[in-house]
């Protein structure tokens, strides 16, 4: 088709194919067409504002149909199907991006203004009735509870993965592997219920809520992640290193401590950071096990303790007189939380990239 219209010389390599760039033109064209339709609807008074999401979405669907028809006419049925699937997959990608971009934009737009106010990181919520107030109590709670959870779960997780890789044979190892898989699937709220029930029985107080209870709940969620990731990393250590160490007469435990773990330490640290990033945003178990409060509480073992995710939730769920103050604080906390989690993730990846052993592949 192109060859016919572009001149007398027929290029056998390009005949029967859509011209290069036509896909993009069709995509932009269909976005423009649907955008125009929505603009007419807007001028006719159907909608108040221009529906950007709607026009992108429907435009992409129109593109899927158009590209199939065009390709079917020019290139035949097989190529048309290929192009249809390609465009559908691109559509799936765009559909995914829409909510995620919207989410990030909303959090930044609603949270940034409140987050950079000085009161946000210098005040707690004690005796706050106006628009001020901040997250100091929640920040302290999150730091203490996450640190306690890490202190509980890192030794257990690391030693268990050493057992599974270096010692574990037979039934016990198989049982542990299976149960670690089961633990990975525990819903976070069930972990919270467990910690609550545990401490209710231990203390004899059916309403007991404290930071340590939340830390236990988070540790239940964190242990399987730490075990899984460190196990993978320990398995990557080449057997030659262990054998060389044994051949020099080094005992097994020193081989593990001085050869195996140092070789894989970057991967292990990465796994731990990812696990921390995963549990630091958990809301449900902390809501149940650690409770919530408006005051600073440094004591892990008594009285409810506020944490960042729970703060974001309670500020939204229990709005007071000036609802917008509460919602603003909630968004600002959400933004802080996302930034913390992303920072932890990035650091983990950097560690993995910089320090990972170079195993030629």
């Amino acid at each position: 088709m192109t060859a016919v219209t572009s001149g007398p010389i027929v290029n056998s390599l390009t005949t029967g194919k859509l011209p290069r760039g036509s896909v993009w033109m069709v995509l932009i064209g269909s976005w423009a067409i649907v955008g125009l339709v929505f603009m007419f609807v807007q001028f006719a008074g159907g909608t108040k504002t221009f529906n950007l999401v709607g026009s992108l979405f429907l435009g992409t669907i129109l593109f899927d149909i158009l590209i199939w028809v065009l390709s079917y006419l020019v290139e035949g049925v097989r190529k048309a199907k290929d192009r249809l699937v390609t465009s559908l997959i691109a559509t799936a990608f765009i559909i995914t991006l829409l909510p995620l971009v919207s989410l990030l934009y909303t959090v930044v737009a609603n949270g940034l203004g409140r987050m950079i106010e000085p009161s946000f990181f210098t005040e707690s919520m004690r005796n706050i009735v106006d628009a001020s107030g901040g997250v100091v109590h929640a920040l302290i709670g999150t730091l203490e509870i996450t640190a306690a959870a890490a202190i509980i779960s890192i030794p257990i997780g690391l030693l268990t993965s050493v057992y599974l890789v270096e010692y574990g044979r037979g039934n016990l190892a198989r049982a542990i592997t299976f149960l670690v898989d089961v633990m990975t699937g525990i819903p976070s709220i069930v972990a919270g219920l467990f910690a609550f029930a545990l401490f209710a029985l231990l203390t004899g107080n059916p309403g007991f809520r404290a930071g340590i209870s939340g830390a236990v709940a988070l540790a239940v969620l964190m242990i399987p992640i730490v075990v899984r990731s460190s196990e993978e990393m320990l398995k990557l250590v080449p057997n030659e290193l262990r054998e060389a160490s044994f051949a020099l007469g080094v005992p097994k435990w020193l081989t593990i401590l001085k050869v195996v773990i140092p070789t894989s330490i970057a991967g292990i640290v990465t796994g731990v950071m990812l696990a921390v990033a995963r549990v630091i945003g958990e809301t449900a178990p902390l809501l149940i096990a650690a409770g919530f409060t408006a005051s600073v509480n440094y004591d892990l073992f008594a009285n409810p303790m506020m944490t960042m995710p729970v703060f974001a939730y309670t500020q939204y769920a229990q709005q007071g007189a000036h609802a917008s103050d509460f919602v603003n604080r909630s968004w600002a906390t959400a933004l802080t939380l996302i930034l913390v989690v992303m920072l932890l993730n990035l650091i983990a990846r950097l560690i993995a990239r910089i320090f990972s052993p170079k195993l030629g592949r």
Partner: protein
Amino acid sequence: MTTGPEDKIPARTRLGDRVFSTSTIVAGSIILAVLAAVAIFLVIQAIPAIVAKPGTLPNGAANFWDYVGPLVFGTIWAAALAMIMAVPISIGVALFISHYAPRRIAQVLGYIVDLLAAVPSVVFGLWGVQVLAPAIQPFYVWLNTNLGWIPLFGGETSGTGRTILTVAIVLAVMVLPIMTAVCREIFLQTPRLHEEAALALGATRWEMIKTAVLPFARPGIVSAAMLGLGRALGETMAVAIVLSPALVVSFFLLTSQNPETIAGNIALQFSEASGIGLNALVASGLVLFVITFIVNAVARFVVSRRRAFSGAN
């Protein structure tokens, strides 16, 4: 390693070895103990609710199963709706990243998807209730007026948009990153030779994917879907924030009378519950634990079968 049992020289047992290996065994056993403790403590707290006399449970339920039934329905219904949306899209996105996008962009996209997996669930909940629900409500009205003859879209449309369908969309968005990540890894493991053989025989890219990639990856896709399903079943905060619940078993997607999920119910009721009501919540948590356990067991089974038959190793 290679010496037979008859010529084995017993190694000298050192104190350090003893201590170290024992401590690793203890750590492993703690995991067994923790899981047993989870089950035991939940059961202890749950028993009073399971054997409760009629009329003592909350919501006027006759017995425990009457109480937990609607919640189980809501949990599975919301998760199923989320999976219907999330599975095809996550396969598409994973294929996009693994086989369609240019190599350099693909790596960046992979990182972005991984980072999004780490967005806390409470943030998704806030976004769902403050952005998605109001934005999508006019669309629900349109669906109800034009497609109301389909039973799913019938009933009285919710004025706030906080319906089970909104919850399902939020859940789908939440499980997309993790499912995409798993699918992507599996698509990338497809043997290069299979793909090149298909292309060499003249297959288009889609035919190559259909004949080489998808058959290889099918068990992996199933296990990714199961992983996502487990997440969606246990997800709490997004449901608790977004849904406006009622104690109904209803297939209507757009009304303000929505079935509640187990996790959402626990989060909303827990701070006010006491006595038998508290036991009932713990018991419903136990039911949720059992459901997710079954889902994970199925996923494990599928993955282990894959290991046996895959040609890659």
